[in-house]
Protein backbone atom coordinates (compact mmCIF):
# COMPACT_ATOMS: atom_id res chain seq x y z
CA UNK A 1 0.00 0.00 0.00
CA UNK A 2 1.20 3.46 -0.90
CA UNK A 3 4.41 2.21 -2.46
CA UNK A 4 5.33 4.23 -5.50
CA UNK A 5 6.56 2.00 -8.28
CA UNK A 6 8.17 2.79 -11.56
CA UNK A 7 6.37 1.73 -14.72
CA UNK A 8 8.68 0.00 -17.17
CA UNK A 9 6.53 -0.44 -20.22
CA UNK A 10 5.41 1.97 -22.90
CA UNK A 11 1.82 2.23 -21.75
CA UNK A 12 2.15 5.95 -20.97
CA UNK A 13 2.29 5.94 -17.19
CA UNK A 14 5.47 6.81 -15.34
CA UNK A 15 4.74 6.23 -11.68
CA UNK A 16 1.95 4.37 -9.96
CA UNK A 17 1.10 4.02 -6.32
CA UNK A 18 0.02 0.65 -5.03
CA UNK A 19 -3.39 0.65 -3.42
CA UNK A 20 -3.94 -3.06 -2.93
CA UNK A 21 -1.95 -6.25 -3.18
CA UNK A 22 -4.19 -8.92 -4.63
CA UNK A 23 -2.66 -11.91 -2.90
CA UNK A 24 -0.89 -12.10 0.41
CA UNK A 25 -1.63 -10.53 3.71
CA UNK A 26 1.84 -9.10 4.11
CA UNK A 27 1.99 -7.38 0.77
CA UNK A 28 2.90 -8.15 -2.80
CA UNK A 29 6.32 -9.46 -3.75
CA UNK A 30 8.14 -10.07 -7.01
CA UNK A 31 5.78 -11.53 -9.57
CA UNK A 32 2.54 -10.66 -7.79
CA UNK A 33 -0.30 -8.58 -9.17
CA UNK A 34 -1.30 -5.33 -7.54
CA UNK A 35 -3.97 -2.69 -8.00
CA UNK A 36 -2.42 0.73 -8.42
CA UNK A 37 -3.37 4.30 -9.13
CA UNK A 38 -1.45 6.22 -11.77
CA UNK A 39 0.28 9.18 -10.20
CA UNK A 40 2.36 10.43 -13.08
CA UNK A 41 1.84 9.85 -16.77
CA UNK A 42 3.16 10.91 -20.16
CA UNK A 43 0.97 13.48 -21.89
CA UNK A 44 -0.17 11.22 -24.73
CA UNK A 45 -0.31 7.67 -23.50
CA UNK A 46 -2.80 4.90 -23.16
CA UNK A 47 -3.37 5.53 -19.47
CA UNK A 48 -4.00 8.88 -17.84
CA UNK A 49 -3.20 10.20 -14.40
CA UNK A 50 -5.64 9.08 -11.75
CA UNK A 51 -6.66 5.88 -13.48
CA UNK A 52 -6.88 2.70 -11.42
CA UNK A 53 -4.94 -0.09 -13.12
CA UNK A 54 -3.66 -3.55 -12.41
CA UNK A 55 0.06 -4.23 -12.49
CA UNK A 56 2.55 -7.04 -12.17
CA UNK A 57 5.62 -6.41 -10.03
CA UNK A 58 8.70 -7.18 -12.14
CA UNK A 59 11.47 -5.73 -9.99
CA UNK A 60 11.50 -5.46 -6.24
CA UNK A 61 14.05 -4.20 -3.79
CA UNK A 62 13.09 -7.01 -1.43
CA UNK A 63 14.95 -10.18 -2.16
CA UNK A 64 13.06 -13.22 -3.32
CA UNK A 65 14.41 -16.71 -2.81
CA UNK A 66 14.82 -19.01 -5.75
CA UNK A 67 14.45 -22.75 -5.55
CA UNK A 68 18.18 -23.33 -5.83
CA UNK A 69 18.81 -21.29 -2.66
CA UNK A 70 19.95 -18.06 -4.32
CA UNK A 71 18.11 -14.81 -3.90
CA UNK A 72 17.38 -12.15 -6.46
CA UNK A 73 17.10 -8.50 -5.55
CA UNK A 74 16.90 -5.39 -7.68
CA UNK A 75 17.65 -1.80 -6.88
CA UNK A 76 14.23 -0.37 -7.65
CA UNK A 77 10.59 -1.32 -7.58
CA UNK A 78 9.07 -1.63 -11.00
CA UNK A 79 5.72 -2.71 -12.36
CA UNK A 80 4.24 -3.58 -15.75
CA UNK A 81 0.64 -2.48 -16.28
CA UNK A 82 -1.85 -5.15 -17.26
CA UNK A 83 -5.59 -5.20 -17.66
CA UNK A 84 -7.94 -7.27 -15.56
CA UNK A 85 -7.48 -10.35 -17.74
CA UNK A 86 -3.70 -10.19 -17.51
CA UNK A 87 -2.94 -8.77 -20.96
CA UNK A 88 -0.16 -6.19 -20.89
CA UNK A 89 -1.32 -2.71 -21.85
CA UNK A 90 2.04 -1.65 -23.27
CA UNK A 91 3.89 -3.36 -26.08
CA UNK A 92 7.46 -3.39 -24.80
CA UNK A 93 9.02 -3.89 -21.39
CA UNK A 94 12.28 -2.15 -20.54
CA UNK A 95 14.98 -3.23 -18.17
CA UNK A 96 15.64 -6.70 -16.78
CA UNK A 97 12.87 -8.98 -15.58
CA UNK A 98 13.36 -12.07 -13.47
CA UNK A 99 12.65 -15.68 -14.31
CA UNK A 100 10.03 -15.88 -11.58
CA UNK A 101 7.44 -14.52 -13.99
CA UNK A 102 7.40 -17.79 -15.88
CA UNK A 103 6.38 -19.70 -12.79
CA UNK A 104 3.74 -17.10 -12.04
CA UNK A 105 2.18 -17.51 -15.48
CA UNK A 106 3.30 -14.16 -16.87
CA UNK A 107 4.99 -15.49 -19.99
CA UNK A 108 3.50 -12.61 -21.98
CA UNK A 109 5.58 -10.11 -20.06
CA UNK A 110 8.64 -12.31 -20.56
CA UNK A 111 8.16 -12.31 -24.31
CA UNK A 112 7.86 -8.53 -24.38
CA UNK A 113 10.90 -8.06 -22.17
CA UNK A 114 14.30 -7.23 -23.56
CA UNK A 115 16.51 -8.74 -20.92
CA UNK A 116 15.84 -11.55 -18.49
CA UNK A 117 17.80 -11.69 -15.26
Amino acid at each position, binding site marked *: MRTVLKVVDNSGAKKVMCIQALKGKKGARLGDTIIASVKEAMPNGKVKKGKVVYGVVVRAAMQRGRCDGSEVRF*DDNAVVLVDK*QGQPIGTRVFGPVPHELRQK*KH*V*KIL*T*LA*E*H*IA
Partner: protein
Amino acid sequence: MWATLRSRYLHLSAKTLPSSSLTNGSWKLGFSGLNQTFSSSTVERRSNELLSLQEVEKVLSDVRADDVAVVPVGNQCDWADFMVIATGRSQWHVKNIAQALIYKVKQKQKGAKRMVLPSVQGQETGKWIVIDSGRVIVHALDEKARAYYNLENLWTAKPAQKEPVEELTKVFVKVRRINNSKKPAQGSD
Protein backbone atom coordinates in the same frame (compact mmCIF):
# COMPACT_ATOMS: atom_id res chain seq x y z
CA MET B 1 -16.54 -29.31 -29.51
CA TRP B 2 -14.32 -32.35 -29.01
CA ALA B 3 -16.53 -34.35 -31.38
CA THR B 4 -15.95 -31.87 -34.18
CA LEU B 5 -12.22 -31.83 -33.49
CA ARG B 6 -12.03 -35.60 -33.56
CA SER B 7 -14.00 -35.80 -36.79
CA ARG B 8 -11.65 -33.26 -38.33
CA TYR B 9 -8.66 -35.40 -37.45
CA LEU B 10 -10.31 -38.47 -38.96
CA HIS B 11 -11.14 -36.79 -42.24
CA LEU B 12 -7.77 -35.19 -42.83
CA SER B 13 -5.34 -37.02 -45.04
CA ALA B 14 -1.64 -36.60 -44.41
CA LYS B 15 -0.85 -33.13 -45.67
CA THR B 16 2.57 -31.77 -46.34
CA LEU B 17 2.96 -28.21 -45.18
CA PRO B 18 2.66 -25.77 -48.07
CA SER B 19 5.76 -23.65 -48.17
CA SER B 20 3.64 -20.61 -48.97
CA SER B 21 2.50 -20.57 -45.38
CA LEU B 22 6.02 -19.76 -44.23
CA THR B 23 6.39 -16.06 -43.79
CA ASN B 24 9.62 -15.86 -41.87
CA GLY B 25 12.82 -16.33 -43.84
CA SER B 26 14.80 -17.48 -40.82
CA TRP B 27 12.32 -20.32 -40.27
CA LYS B 28 13.18 -21.88 -43.63
CA LEU B 29 16.85 -21.79 -42.74
CA GLY B 30 16.36 -23.58 -39.47
CA PHE B 31 13.89 -26.15 -40.65
CA SER B 32 15.78 -27.39 -43.68
CA GLY B 33 18.53 -28.46 -41.32
CA LEU B 34 15.99 -30.00 -38.96
CA ASN B 35 14.59 -32.33 -41.59
CA GLN B 36 17.87 -34.08 -42.16
CA THR B 37 19.35 -34.15 -38.70
CA PHE B 38 16.26 -34.40 -36.56
CA SER B 39 17.17 -37.64 -34.91
CA SER B 40 20.72 -36.76 -34.07
CA SER B 41 20.58 -33.15 -32.94
CA THR B 42 20.29 -32.62 -29.24
CA VAL B 43 18.57 -29.24 -29.28
CA GLU B 44 15.36 -30.62 -30.74
CA ARG B 45 15.38 -33.55 -28.35
CA ARG B 46 14.74 -31.27 -25.43
CA SER B 47 11.59 -29.82 -26.97
CA ASN B 48 10.03 -33.25 -27.09
CA GLU B 49 8.93 -32.91 -23.48
CA LEU B 50 5.41 -31.70 -24.13
CA LEU B 51 5.17 -30.51 -27.71
CA SER B 52 7.71 -30.64 -30.47
CA LEU B 53 7.98 -28.14 -33.28
CA GLN B 54 6.72 -30.51 -35.93
CA GLU B 55 3.66 -31.44 -33.91
CA VAL B 56 2.87 -27.78 -33.32
CA GLU B 57 3.17 -27.11 -37.03
CA LYS B 58 0.86 -29.99 -37.86
CA VAL B 59 -1.78 -28.93 -35.36
CA LEU B 60 -1.69 -25.34 -36.53
CA SER B 61 -2.15 -26.38 -40.13
CA ASP B 62 -5.01 -28.68 -39.12
CA VAL B 63 -6.79 -25.87 -37.32
CA ARG B 64 -6.12 -23.63 -40.32
CA ALA B 65 -4.37 -20.91 -38.38
CA ASP B 66 -3.26 -17.97 -40.50
CA ASP B 67 0.20 -16.61 -40.86
CA VAL B 68 2.19 -19.10 -38.84
CA ALA B 69 5.66 -17.78 -38.07
CA VAL B 70 8.36 -19.76 -36.31
CA VAL B 71 11.20 -17.80 -34.79
CA PRO B 72 14.24 -19.67 -33.49
CA VAL B 73 15.20 -17.73 -30.40
CA GLY B 74 17.62 -20.25 -28.94
CA ASN B 75 20.58 -17.97 -29.48
CA GLN B 76 18.82 -14.91 -28.01
CA CYS B 77 17.22 -16.28 -24.90
CA ASP B 78 17.96 -19.32 -22.80
CA TRP B 79 14.49 -20.11 -21.57
CA ALA B 80 12.98 -21.03 -24.93
CA ASP B 81 14.17 -22.47 -28.20
CA PHE B 82 11.35 -21.67 -30.58
CA MET B 83 8.55 -19.19 -30.63
CA VAL B 84 5.60 -20.01 -32.84
CA ILE B 85 3.23 -17.15 -33.60
CA ALA B 86 -0.14 -17.87 -35.17
CA THR B 87 -3.12 -15.70 -35.99
CA GLY B 88 -6.75 -16.62 -35.54
CA ARG B 89 -9.54 -15.12 -37.59
CA SER B 90 -11.77 -14.48 -34.60
CA GLN B 91 -11.62 -14.81 -30.83
CA TRP B 92 -13.32 -18.16 -30.98
CA HIS B 93 -10.75 -19.33 -33.52
CA VAL B 94 -7.90 -18.26 -31.25
CA LYS B 95 -9.42 -20.21 -28.35
CA ASN B 96 -9.85 -23.16 -30.68
CA ILE B 97 -6.18 -23.12 -31.64
CA ALA B 98 -5.26 -23.31 -27.95
CA GLN B 99 -7.72 -26.13 -27.32
CA ALA B 100 -6.39 -28.08 -30.29
CA LEU B 101 -2.84 -27.86 -29.01
CA ILE B 102 -3.86 -29.02 -25.54
CA TYR B 103 -5.82 -31.87 -27.11
CA LYS B 104 -2.71 -32.88 -29.01
CA VAL B 105 -0.68 -32.96 -25.80
CA LYS B 106 -3.35 -35.05 -24.10
CA GLN B 107 -3.39 -37.46 -27.02
CA LYS B 108 0.38 -37.77 -26.87
CA GLN B 109 0.27 -38.63 -23.20
CA LYS B 110 -2.67 -40.99 -23.33
CA GLY B 111 -2.32 -43.87 -20.95
CA ALA B 112 0.34 -42.29 -18.79
CA LYS B 113 -0.22 -42.31 -15.09
CA ARG B 114 0.00 -38.56 -14.66
CA MET B 115 -0.56 -36.07 -17.43
CA VAL B 116 1.58 -32.97 -17.63
CA LEU B 117 -0.32 -30.26 -19.41
CA PRO B 118 1.29 -27.14 -20.86
CA SER B 119 0.40 -23.92 -19.08
CA VAL B 120 -2.08 -21.76 -20.93
CA GLN B 121 -2.36 -18.05 -20.27
CA GLY B 122 -5.11 -15.83 -21.55
CA GLN B 123 -7.71 -18.51 -22.12
CA GLU B 124 -10.74 -16.44 -21.06
CA THR B 125 -10.18 -13.66 -23.58
CA GLY B 126 -9.47 -14.74 -27.09
CA LYS B 127 -7.04 -11.93 -27.71
CA TRP B 128 -3.67 -13.45 -26.87
CA ILE B 129 -3.21 -17.00 -25.68
CA VAL B 130 0.24 -18.27 -24.77
CA ILE B 131 0.91 -21.98 -24.51
CA ASP B 132 4.14 -22.68 -22.68
CA SER B 133 5.35 -26.20 -23.37
CA GLY B 134 8.95 -26.19 -22.25
CA ARG B 135 11.22 -25.10 -25.03
CA VAL B 136 8.53 -24.32 -27.56
CA ILE B 137 6.21 -21.42 -26.85
CA VAL B 138 3.13 -20.92 -28.98
CA HIS B 139 1.42 -17.55 -29.22
CA ALA B 140 -2.09 -17.47 -30.62
CA LEU B 141 -3.25 -13.93 -31.32
CA ASP B 142 -6.01 -12.33 -33.26
CA GLU B 143 -5.14 -9.91 -36.04
CA LYS B 144 -5.58 -6.75 -34.02
CA ALA B 145 -3.40 -8.04 -31.18
CA ARG B 146 -0.74 -9.20 -33.63
CA ALA B 147 -0.49 -5.77 -35.19
CA TYR B 148 -0.51 -4.14 -31.77
CA TYR B 149 2.18 -6.19 -30.06
CA ASN B 150 4.32 -6.86 -33.14
CA LEU B 151 6.15 -9.83 -31.69
CA GLU B 152 8.11 -10.76 -34.82
CA ASN B 153 9.66 -7.33 -34.90
CA LEU B 154 10.76 -7.75 -31.33
CA TRP B 155 12.27 -11.19 -31.69
CA THR B 156 13.82 -11.04 -35.13
CA ALA B 157 15.39 -7.64 -34.62
CA LYS B 158 16.47 -8.55 -31.09
CA PRO B 159 20.25 -9.01 -31.44
CA ALA B 160 20.69 -5.61 -33.04
CA GLN B 161 18.71 -3.79 -30.37
CA LYS B 162 20.41 -5.38 -27.41
CA GLU B 163 21.50 -2.88 -24.80
CA PRO B 164 25.23 -2.80 -24.16
CA VAL B 165 26.13 -4.73 -21.05
CA GLU B 166 27.93 -1.81 -19.44
CA GLU B 167 24.74 0.24 -19.16
CA LEU B 168 22.97 -2.67 -17.58
CA THR B 169 25.58 -3.11 -14.87
CA LYS B 170 25.16 0.55 -13.95
CA VAL B 171 21.51 -0.08 -13.15
CA PHE B 172 22.38 -2.27 -10.19
CA VAL B 173 24.94 0.09 -8.68
CA LYS B 174 23.77 2.18 -5.77
CA VAL B 175 24.47 5.86 -6.29
CA ARG B 176 25.59 7.91 -3.29
CA ARG B 177 23.58 11.05 -2.76
CA ILE B 178 25.31 14.39 -3.33
CA ASN B 179 25.89 16.08 0.02
CA ASN B 180 24.91 19.74 -0.45
CA SER B 181 24.47 20.57 3.24
CA LYS B 182 27.05 22.21 5.45
CA LYS B 183 27.17 19.24 7.79
CA PRO B 184 29.64 16.50 6.94
CA ALA B 185 28.29 13.14 5.80
CA GLN B 186 27.53 10.73 8.62
CA GLY B 187 30.29 8.28 9.38
CA SER B 188 33.04 10.30 7.73
CA ASP B 189 35.60 11.96 9.96
